[in-house]
């Protein structure tokens, strides 16, 4: 099968149960979906689970998928909804963490850098910078955070973000204005 097939055609094949088409689709989008979730949630293990959940839903919903919507918008909407639901349920579970102090999650900025060859100073700086950005991002309200991530890291248009967040283009514009203003304060940019 041609690996260059457009997403919509792959979805038609997936709807018929074609696992190879599914594999191509997953390989094409796994990094962007994983990073979108990771930047939003801030926990690597949880992000991988959620990214897999996104693709499981793609598989399950392939038969009902209508190609009149752009595939990535549809895919990111699934990911965004999962992220928002995850945040809600983790808020409910937060009080239980008192009793579960042993299960420390690896967070953004606490990566295993053993593959690369950066110097210890670079590592420290990168970790510190990542930690600051993550904590600034995490402090944003959910919709502002998601809009900002989709714009900054996925370079989506306002119209596409509006489609994903199910709101108007002007709402996206004001979400981004507020998100950038908040980040200026959090990151102490003067």
């Amino acid at each position, binding site marked *: 099968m041609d690996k260059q097939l457009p997403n919509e055609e792959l979805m038609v094949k997936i709807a018929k149960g074609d*696992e190879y088409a599914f*594999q191509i689709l*997953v*390989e094409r989008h*796994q*990094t962007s979906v*994983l*990073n979108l979730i*990771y*930047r939003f949630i801030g926990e*690597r293990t949880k*992000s*991988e689970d959620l*990214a*897999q959940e996104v*693709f*499981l*839903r793609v*598989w*399950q919903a392939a038969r009902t998928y209508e190609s009149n919507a752009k595939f990535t918008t549809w895919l990111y909407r699934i990911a965004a909804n999962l992220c928002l639901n995850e945040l809600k349920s983790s808020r409910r579970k937060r009080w239980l963490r008192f009793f579960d102090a042993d299960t420390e999650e690896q967070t*953004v900025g606490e*990566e295993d850098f053993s593959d690369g060859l950066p110097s210890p100073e670079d590592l420290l700086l*990168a970790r510190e*910078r*990542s930690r600051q*950005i*993550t904590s600034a*991002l995490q402090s944003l309200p959910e919709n502002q955070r998601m809009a*900002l991530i989709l*714009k*900054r*890291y996925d370079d989506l*248009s*306002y119209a596409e973000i509006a489609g994903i967040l199910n709101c108007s283009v002007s709402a996206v*514009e004001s979400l*981004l*204005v507020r998100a*950038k203003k908040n*980040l*200026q304060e959090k*990151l102490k*940019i*003067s």
Partner: protein
Amino acid sequence: MKPSAGFWIESCLIILRDDPFTETRCDMKCRRVQKKLSAYQDGELKPLEQAELSRHLLSCQSCREAYEKLERVWQTLGGLEEISPGPWFYPQLVRKLKEPCKRGLSPTLQHVFRFIGAPAIASIILVIGLAAGSYLGTNLARRDLFPSPSIPVSDSQSAFFASMRVFDPAPPGTFAEGYLRMASYEESGSR
């Protein structure tokens, strides 16, 4: 002597320069521009607006500084590294796909249950409560566990005595009376 045209022009320029309204007009324009800076940065304005803002940024220092701050935020965000999925990502995904039993309810059903779950449980508890109440009220209360001594009384007298039992601590036919009867029944049975 009639003032020259040059004098009038110079006077107008002085008034315009010192006029607080001129400054206000500029501030208003800057405020409008600064509201649009985010969309300008993201390239989401119409070409004409985009060009107008570019011109304004060249001439206005405060707006230019505001824009540079936005740019610094954008650059700082670039410091967040990208992660890659592990080699186990797809095999693990396929394993999850092939284990439908362990995945529990489908997302649609989960969604439905999230909304109807609490009312359904409340309804079940209510039905159980009503059933238990009706059982105690009818079945147990009807049993004459402590028959009163048979003294011949007229119908009107018995109706009077029955109506007076409304003032009992546990009036007949109530949940409390049913419970008391049940408790004393069990007590007498265990003896």
